[in-house]
């Protein structure tokens, strides 16, 4: 998968905005988006929020997990635990990037938030690599990792599956007594 594809999937998440225009309820295939009144908060998907923000028609309210203290707690917990901690939103990386790029004026302490999310990401990726390394060095047949997000899986996915394929094929060399494949008789 491409990171852009993962970002596309992330844009379905809902976020709260405060519009400055009014519009009746709109009926889309994915669901209804309820009437827009100036000054009243309404929940919309991220793709719509970004679009409205770019046209200066709304103000985005940051999700409740996008807060300096909360993210610091998450980061500390991530550093203490050896396994992956559950994070508030399965698309935290993509949402951070999107919201901070387009709506940084609506989000207090945007730079600190960016740093904190990056730190958490680095810690989780490091744990993922450690786990992949122990997987290969102990030649396990399968492993289970909870609380991983799609973006993390996607970054390391191809590399891991390729190397495990190679290892598997090299392992089948160890079994004696299999057919040696095609041979020609003259």
């Amino acid at each position, binding site marked *: 998968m491409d990171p852009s594809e993962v970002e596309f999937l992330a844009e379905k998440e809902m976020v709260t905005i405060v519009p400055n225009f009014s519009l009746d309820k709109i009926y889309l295939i994915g669901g209804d988006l309820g009437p827009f009144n100036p000054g009243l908060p309404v929940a919309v998907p991220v793709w719509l929020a970004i679009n409205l923000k770019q046209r200066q028609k709304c103000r985005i309210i940051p999700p409740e997990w996008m807060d300096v203290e909360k993210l610091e707690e998450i980061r500390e917990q991530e550093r203490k635990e050896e396994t992956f901690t559950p994070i508030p939103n399965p698309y935290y990386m993509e949402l951070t990037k999107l919201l901070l790029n387009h709506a940084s004026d609506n989000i207090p302490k945007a730079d600190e938030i960016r740093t904190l999310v990056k730190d958490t990401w680095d810690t989780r990726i490091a744990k993922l690599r450690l786990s992949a*390394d122990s997987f290969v*060095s102990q030649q396990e047949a399968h492993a289970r990792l909870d609380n991983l997000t799609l973006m993390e899986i996607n970054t*390391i*996915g191809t*590399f891991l599956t390729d190397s495990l*394929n*190679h*290892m598997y094929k090299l392992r089948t*060399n160890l079994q*004696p007594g299999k057919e040696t494949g095609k041979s020609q008789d003259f």
Partner: protein
Amino acid sequence: MTTQSYLPVPPGVGMEENFLSLDDILLSQEKLPTRTECVFPRLGFVEKTSDTRDIPEGTKMEMPLWLSKGLYDNKRRLVSVEQPKIYRQGWRTVFSADPNVVDLHKMGPYYYGLGSQLLHFDSPENPEIAQTVLQTYIGRFRRIMDSSQNAYNEDTSALVERLDVLERSLFRTGQAGLNDFQRWEKGQASQITASNLVQNYKKRKFPDLEA
């Protein structure tokens, strides 16, 4: 999108080879020390060192892998293959001591491929060879992963020069994953760029087409 314009046929890892894979074709060019077990009449010109008309029995020659594989047969003894020295006991102990130290590119750039192909020629040391190849791979995996996932926008030639061909393709995959992520994070993922297949084309002017 990361799909390439053409997908090369990957090499067959392990004891098979992919007929259409360029990597496997290059692998089969590797020379193996062999010993002929019977006379090859009137082929003396192949063996430049001796001036005889036929190749007598018991000559030691270097044959490429494709030829040795074709001629090797358990029932009709035409050639016997000796293992190249990196698969022998001495080097095997070096690999089991520390696989990270060895320069696998210098030791024949197709260490894993050739090692797997050697298992076709039955020899009592086959299980140990297979085991050593596997353990070397596992030992070096950590370093490949770390170096490929952490070297962004740097010159990677120093990291890559001690890897063999299989490890290099893994390194490239790791780098591709990393580069994609970094590009996305910088926001360059949605920029449209010319495909690298057409970048060298120059615009043709209409009068040129007519001429």
